[in-house]
């Protein structure tokens, strides 16, 4: 009796492990397919390019006014905190490099990814899930329209372009708003502040900003798309799909952040 319970328990662990591995394999396979299509010239049909332009507009351009306000508010607050702490611990000479590292390497790409995830990630997850439930994806398949080329690739590319460009914009606004704080708190003139930042800037800061933004852009679109695609055939499954997709996306964003910190500390 106890033996059969133990066997069932071991079997359930095996089942769970197998289904976990199968889902990991499926997700990696889908990612690999998207990457292959990304580098193929034939993926870029006029229809795909039109979707790409629309997606860049919806993801990057539409958010700019809100984004500038948020960058300014967060910028002055966070840069202010960094400067106050640096002054408190007698690190005034290091303020430039602290600001540049904090803004370019960490905060700008991370915050941009979070904002785009909340705004566009959730929308794309819902859009793909609705199309799936409405059988619109089966229409596209029936007419031999490659889902990766027509639907997924424009969204992934727009995610990469949008997060990279918005992260750069965010960093610029954040550093500019930081000047306002230094002006009032430290009486620092613009020339000194500018030199402080320029002397601290290194090529590696741009590389980290670029690589992190690309990685964030990729997962911010890829995970919601995959989650929408896996939605079961019922309208009630759509909110569950969005919920699962967003949880996985946030885990992935934090995972990238941790990996990047580990790599930078090497």
């Amino acid at each position: 009796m106890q033996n059969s319970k133990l066997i069932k328990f071991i079997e359930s662990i095996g089942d769970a492990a197998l289904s976990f591995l199968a889902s990991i394999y499926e997700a990696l396979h889908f990612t690999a397919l998207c990457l292959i299509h990304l580098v193929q010239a034939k993926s870029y049909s006029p229809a795909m390019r039109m979707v790409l332009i629309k997606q860049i507009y919806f993801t990057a351009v539409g958010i700019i006014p809100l984004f500038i306000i948020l960058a300014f508010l967060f910028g002055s607050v966070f840069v202010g905190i960094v400067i106050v702490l640096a002054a408190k611990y007698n690190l005034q000479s290091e303020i430039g490099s602290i600001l540049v590292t904090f803004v370019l390497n960490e905060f700008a790409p991370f915050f941009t990814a979070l904002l785009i995830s909340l705004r566009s990630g959730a929308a794309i997850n819902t859009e793909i899930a609705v199309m799936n439930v409405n059988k619109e994806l089966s229409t596209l398949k029936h007419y031999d329209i490659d889902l990766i080329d027509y639907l997924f690739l424009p969204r992934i590319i727009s995610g990469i372009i949008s997060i990279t460009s918005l992260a750069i914009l965010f960093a610029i606004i954040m550093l500019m708003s930081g000047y306002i704080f230094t002006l009032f708190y430290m009486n620092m003139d613009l020339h000194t502040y500018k030199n402080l930042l320029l002397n601290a800037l290194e090529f590696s800061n741009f590389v980290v900003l670029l690589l992190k933004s690309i990685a964030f852009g990729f997962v911010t679109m890829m995970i919601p798309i995959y989650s929408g695609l896996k939605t079961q055939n019922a309208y009630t499954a759509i909110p569950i799909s969005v919920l699962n997709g967003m949880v996985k996306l946030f885990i992935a964003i934090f995972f990238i952040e941790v990996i990047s910190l580990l790599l930078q500390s090497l």
Partner: protein
Amino acid sequence: MHEQYSLISSETPVISNLNMLENIALIKEFHEHMPTSQAQNIAREYLQKIDLGHIANYRANQCTSLELFYVMALRALMSQKEDIIIVTPLLLIKKIETMNAIIETLKRLNDGNKNILILDTHSNELYYKGCRCNIIE
């Protein structure tokens, strides 16, 4: 495995995030790499041919079931596949008395002489009375 026919059925609805013009033009843009404006001009001409030019910029929720049916038919006609299969059109089109007008419109649109096959059930036989088409039981 790709089907050798274009299907018009409840399994192949129009794409809801595209307007009717984009829905029709999509096939040519994607398969023939036709520029968007050119493909949309062709789509617009076909819509005007059946007096539906006004729905060009409508989304699916703004169209009647008959208008959506014609858009699905035009989309199928844009495809390079020779055969078009329409499955139980009466499930797609609400409130019609006869299929006669629809079949005549399809004939008018079908200038590429594609083979159009309508699959329907016996219970809908009455709707096809007087139609100028071959009925195979």
